[in-house]
């Protein structure tokens, strides 16, 4: 049984929420602790999901918890990006003084993309298809913040 909890959750009302991550995300975050991306693959359509999930949305079949896991590397390519000053996790969603870049990156071997900050990107590096690599936190703790962002390869 897993009791991993995501606690940070500022917002409208100050209330304590603890979100149980469940069986699939637990396995995913266990991978993070070793700086690994654990994905699961649909045996029917072959889609590889990051993060993993119980049902393949396309085939509507169950992906059993003990099967179809694959380990992916930490390289990928930039498939979309944006730049914003909004801090939406802030209670008032204020704008910060500086703009921040976020990238949508498809990890090599997966059919999905994940979104994290782009670190040390120059204006002309912001191009579709740019090869990137995950920058892991020095001491990962098994949570979504273990990935600090993406750096250029």
């Amino acid at each position, binding site marked *: *049984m*897993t*009791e991993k909890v995501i606690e940070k*959750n500022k917002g409208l*009302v*100050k*209330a*304590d*929420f*603890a*979100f*149980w*991550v*469940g*069986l*699939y*995300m637990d396995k995913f975050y266990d991978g993070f602790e070793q700086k690994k991306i654990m994905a699961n693959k649909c045996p029917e359509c072959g889609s590889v999901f990051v993060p993993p*999930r*119980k*049902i*393949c*949305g*396309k085939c*509507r*079949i*169950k992906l059993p918890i003990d099967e179809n896991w694959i380990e992916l590397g930490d390289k990928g390519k930039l498939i979309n990006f944006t730049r914003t000053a909004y801090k939406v996790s802030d209670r008032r969603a204020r704008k910060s003084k500086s703009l921040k870049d976020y990238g949508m990156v498809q990890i090599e071997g997966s059919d999905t993309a994940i979104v994290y900050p782009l670190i040390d990107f120059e204006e002309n590096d912001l191009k579709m298809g740019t090869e990137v690599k995950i920058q892991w936190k020095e001491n990962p703790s098994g949570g979504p913040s273990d990935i600090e962002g993406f750096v250029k390869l």
Partner: protein
Amino acid sequence: MGRQVAITSAGFSEHASKRSDVSMPELVNEAIEDCLTKVPSVELDDIDAFVNGNMPAFEGSNLPELWMTDWMGARNKPLMRITTGGTTGGSVAIGGYYTVTAELPGIDTVLAVAFEQQSQGDTSVGLASVAYGEISILNSLGISYGQLNRLLSGGAAIGVAAYQATNYMSKSKITEEDLARVVVQNRRNAAKTWWAHLKMPDLTIEDVLDTPYIQYPLRYGMVCPASDGAVAMLFTTEEKAKDMCDIPVYVNGVASVANETAVLGYDGSGSAQVDPSAQIGAMKSAELAYSQAGISFPRKEIDYAEVYAPFPNQELMWDEKLGLFEETTAPEMYETGVTARDGELPVNCSGGVNSTNAIGASAMERPAVAALQIMGKASNQVPKTVHTSIGSGWGGSLNFITLMVMSDEPKRKWK
């Protein structure tokens, strides 16, 4: 003008105070799996549309079905979200019925899903906002959440329910033993229901009366638990239902009526109602649903009832308001065994909300169990044959009642 609708299956997740072993989508998926397992000819892919809901403030997620889409099998399918607080489950079930009866092209089989994972959240925050109306106004007046929480110790659902209980007790002259007897019946029934939460096979009236008061007349041993759980129901057309299961359950009447008032709500919630046990909304719901189903003598025509009641006084009150028993006679029915599993009119053989309360799911678990009793597939199945059953839901602050009338025969007379 609307077509006949049938229920062909219902499924549950396991309920407990803390289902921390699963995430919310996994919990919901458990109920869907259990529901579809009972109808082998139906795959997730065969669902034409989804209706779902929960009570979102209780677990800190707005519109959780958005990120649960794939986990429910609803990707690129029609999906509608219905939420009405405590009655959410009942409202979602009724939404499932309307989605099928509307006869929109290509929409025949509908999966209705209701859920709550209360252990994730801070339920008192959710209830505070019902009991005290505008959170933002209170906050802007400088009342902190800490203070609100203390105010809540005598308020929220328990608070308003206690007023309701004393109102009802003064009219019906019931005793605390009568309340405890309802609890004993429920918790013992829960012990025989696989998915139920508070299972107490050996509970006695004395045990219940031995626990301290939370607020007179309600004792700790009498109130519902807070549960994590999910429920799913499958609605389809009369023709398709016959291929899916042996005994389709026909939905012959539905209603969801409130006599909630805005001004009172703004100032002090339903607790300021003159008599919260009057339940005009419940009686109107019953009148509407029974007339649709062609039921004139509910006491004679209904074989089984699942009545939404977190607190025992409410079960007695709604048994009467929904026309199952004459006013003030419900306690007697529990004493003489009429409402027992092998009685003449069994009530809440699942243990009811009093034993299991995953809020958003609870009001759907009532019609779900009532339907399974007709099919003969309920966990704590009654020995007699059930032809007609009802499942109710309670919500709003005190005065919103959903009701579904089900039968093994499509009796509805079309105009």
